[in-house]
């Protein structure tokens, strides 16, 4: 459980820090010229890359889970809870 909480915290930091960083880069700082369009689309592509990578991992895991642990799979075996009151 602690490992999972740690993992989620790491993932959250990985998402939040680059996002905040890019937002500051988008700049309300006076005197600095930034092409906001470029910044925005850079941010979009970066975030989409993260989203698609994480999405591919999670979706791939779910698809594999559904295939491997379906009840008709040759290696499927009853869980220890079947036939009991739980």
């Amino acid at each position: 459980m602690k490992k999972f909480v740690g993992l989620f915290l790491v993932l959250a930091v990985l998402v939040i820090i680059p996002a905040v960083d890019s937002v500051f880069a988008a700049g309300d700082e006076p005197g600095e010229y930034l092409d906001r369009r470029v910044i925005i689309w850079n941010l979009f592509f970066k975030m989409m890359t993260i989203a698609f990578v994480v999405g591919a991992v999670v979706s791939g895991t779910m698809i594999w889970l559904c295939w491997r642990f379906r009840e008709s799979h040759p290696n499927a075996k009853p869980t220890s809870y079947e036939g009991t009151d739980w």
Partner: protein
Amino acid sequence: MVLELQKPRPIWQIMFSTHHTDVGLLYLILSLSFLFMGGALALIIRAELFLPGAQILGDAMTFNRIFTVHGTTLIFLFILPFASAVGNYFVPIMVRYKDMAYPKLNAIAFWMIPPGAALVWLGFADFTWYAQPPYSIISAPGPAADMWIFGLKILGISSVLGAINFVVTILKCKHPDMSIGQVPLLAWSFLASSLIILVAIPTFAAALLMLLTDRLGVSGFFNPAMGGDPIAYSHLFWFTFHPEVYVLVIPAIGMMYEIIPRFSRKPIYSYNSGVFAFVLLSIVAFSSWAHHMYATGMSFTEKTVFMVGTLAAVPASAMHVFNFIATMWNGRIKFSTPMMWAVGGIALFFSAGAGGVANAAMPLDFSTHDSYWVVGHFHLFVMGTIAFGSIGYLYYMFPYVTGRMYNETLGKVHFILSFIGTILVFFTQHVLGLYGMPRRVFDYPPIPEWIIMNQIVTVGAMIIGVSMVIFLANMIYSSGKGKLADTDDPFGLGGKYYYPFEAKNPKH
């Protein structure tokens, strides 16, 4: 559980009953009726946007009325009442109490919905489900706007009464031997969402009163001509309705927490993380309302705070997804219809969340604000996650409610068509938004990319429409003439689950 349709009774006995399963049945029938009515409006909207120019609706005003009532109906008259239906049926059984804490209040909360719904539908207002000021104050026509305001007021009070009932039932009426840490996650989801309602709704109730007095001309809270500020309304509205997103999604996740372990044939991987994530979500629900308003001239610091507040929901949402995956791992999964809907709902929940994370970044939000990206994003939540979880649970509870089984093949066809349709509609709408198409438009310029994407979206919507007709036929036919269900184990999963024991006792 009482098997209402298997043992027919005069309709008035059910209508004037205060028993939780009778009120649950009323909620169920009402919510499904409005699902089809609101869905029909969605098909009209999509038919209109199939091509540029006026297609089937004569003018923009009619279009505005239709999407206003579509949104209001599906949020307030389908999703919320459906959750109440499930809560009414299962929460007292799960906490092992004879009924809801306040049965008469429960019936009153239900019977406030039909008049509220009548006001919304008979008025047919045109100012969006957000009641956009200053338009809603200055020029929204006639009694329609006032009827919408009164209708929403009534529906809001109904939600608050229902929430009070759920909180008291779960916290004060649970079996003395049952600690709060043993309450099933579905009941926990109702506790979390009810607490959000109690905190969030009063703000909108106040905003509605202010809107009404503005319309009457006796105040100018949101009227710039009288020194008021429409942005103040935005804050009040989103303080209620961003948390409301969680009010809608948390019970749907709770329903998935019932389905996933049952059909995986093993208990939930981590009950504690599920509870923790519900509590966390109900807190961070209040930290992100202004992310709807980045474009309104807030300071940079405010925007950053709300961006981080929005991203704070990610860990809690991810905990639910990982909990589902870990539960399915090493199970022996039976892909009956409810499980297919639940797994599809989880996949789409993840997709919607990923889009939300991208959209929470304020520079990107400026590009996508008020575009079809937003429409795609929130519909992926309400349809892909909430409706999928809810419909899956409806199939799951069907044999317990009716004593009969639905047609499994038709249920699976319903899922497959809906899943394909949902992806076609809402993924494409994201791209359409990136191509710059604004939301809430009756007509659009004949840009080839816009036309083809609108056509894909419309075809997807029609596929969902066909699947819903199959669903309706299946429900009506099976509730009267379906195969009799074994209410101990209707899905042939082996063993006995915890609440069918209670369900067999009509007196609870």
